């Protein structure tokens, strides 16, 4: 069906909420009296609806991926909610005691081996790559490179992007990429900035910083960081328990 350019422009302006009062009157009149015009509006409505639907679907997939990536301990808690406060208190106490034991014991395995056993790259929960979509700019390319395991390129692109504006999520991923690439000192610097300059991702930055110290053999600093984590976050206290088992 052929529609005039003028009608298409009018309909587009309607959906973009850019019509003036007189244009709106004209639009309403045409909609009531002109079937061809009404069809054009119905088609545009379907197109805008499809665009919105795609956006919603992508965000839904993002939330599903986020849910799947949430920590195991968090998931266990959700599957079997602990309602009694003393169970929670006991769990926290055990967690802190375990961390304490880690700190008191010397490491039996080499720090490097412990690093290998406990390091897993933080997933890109910030701007996941949508399957089938090609990256349209440097930012998208950076996240895509990270998702694809191309940490060298991800590190280069994240560094460029962060030189203009610092973002906590990007810093966390850059630190991870540098750690994987063996650039431990640079990774430390990334996590330190994240820890100092932002309130968000505080726990994550400390966890990865402790792994940086392990990787570089700086046991004392690793202990200090693990101690802090044990006091604040039960999830990481549980990780420390695993670490203790290996150490013993």
């Amino acid at each position, binding site marked *: 069906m052929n529609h005039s350019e003028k009608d298409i422009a009018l309909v587009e302006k309607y959906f973009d909420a850019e019509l003036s009062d007189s244009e709106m009157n004209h639009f309403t009149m045409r909609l009531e009296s002109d079937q061809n015009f009404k069809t054009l509006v119905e088609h545009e409505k*379907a*197109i805008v609806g*499809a*665009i*919105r639907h795609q956006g919603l679907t992508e*965000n*839904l997939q993002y*939330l599903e991926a986020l*849910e799947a990536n949430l920590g195991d301990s968090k998931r266990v808690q959700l*599957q079997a909610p602990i309602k009694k406060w003393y169970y929670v208190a006991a769990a926290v106490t055990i967690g802190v005691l375990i961390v304490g034991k880690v700190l008191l014991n010397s490491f039996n395995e080499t720090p490097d081996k412990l690093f290998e056993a406990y390091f897993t790259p933080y997933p890109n929960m910030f701007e996941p790559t949508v399957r089938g979509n090609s990256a349209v700019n440097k930012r998208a390319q950076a996240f895509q490179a990270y998702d694809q395991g191309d940490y060298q390129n991800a590190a280069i692109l994240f560094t460029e992007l962060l030189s203009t504006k610092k973002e906590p999520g990007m810093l966390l991923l850059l630190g991870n990429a540098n750690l994987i690439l063996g650039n431990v000192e640079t990774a430390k610097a990334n996590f330190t900035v994240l820890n100092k300059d932002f309130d968000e991702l505080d726990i994550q930055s400390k966890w990865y910083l402790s792994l940086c110290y392990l990787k570089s053999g700086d046991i004392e600093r690793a202990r200090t960081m693990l101690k802090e984590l044990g006091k604040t976050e039960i999830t990481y206290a549980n990780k420390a328990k695993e670490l203790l088992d290996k150490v013993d």
Partner: protein
Amino acid sequence: MNQEDIIHKIRTGGQRELALVYEEYREEFLHWVAKEYNCSMDDSKDLYQVTILIFYDNIRQGKLEHLVSSVKTYLFGIGKNIAKENLRKEKRYVPISKEKWLKESLIDEPSDPIDEESFLRAKSALSKLGQPCQRLVEMFYYEKKSIPEITEALQYKNPETAKNQKCKCMARLRKLFEQEVVQNSTVINHESF
């Protein structure tokens, strides 16, 4: 983060902000839904994801600018409405169809829903649009980003270029849509003979 901060972050941010809100109220919401409606944790998660997307959309569409209550109360209110509506339709709690809920509650207007056939053709046309057009129209119509914001995000020369590009992308999408309509009517004609 205070209430206004959350709204501001969602209005101006992206998926990272969505994740922050999702994690903030997740545990409390999931336990509440599972207990209140005696449903599984997986069903509660489905309901929570739809709730968060409705909250996000209400802010993006400008329907929610200031909260008179807390974010938590608002989210629980949305969740309660979805659960009640689901119960009303099904008479007992059954898992919700997330995509169906999102379309019915966020895309269709109750008094004037989108024709299903046109919607499917539009979806098919959109899948053939390619980048960066797909991303651009999504930023404009779903994320409700302004033309200057799109200019910066997609690195266009200036807002006029971004605006022109948006119009071109929509023209291309309409053409693809028309092709879908013609293709479909040809198939129907062939089948009727």
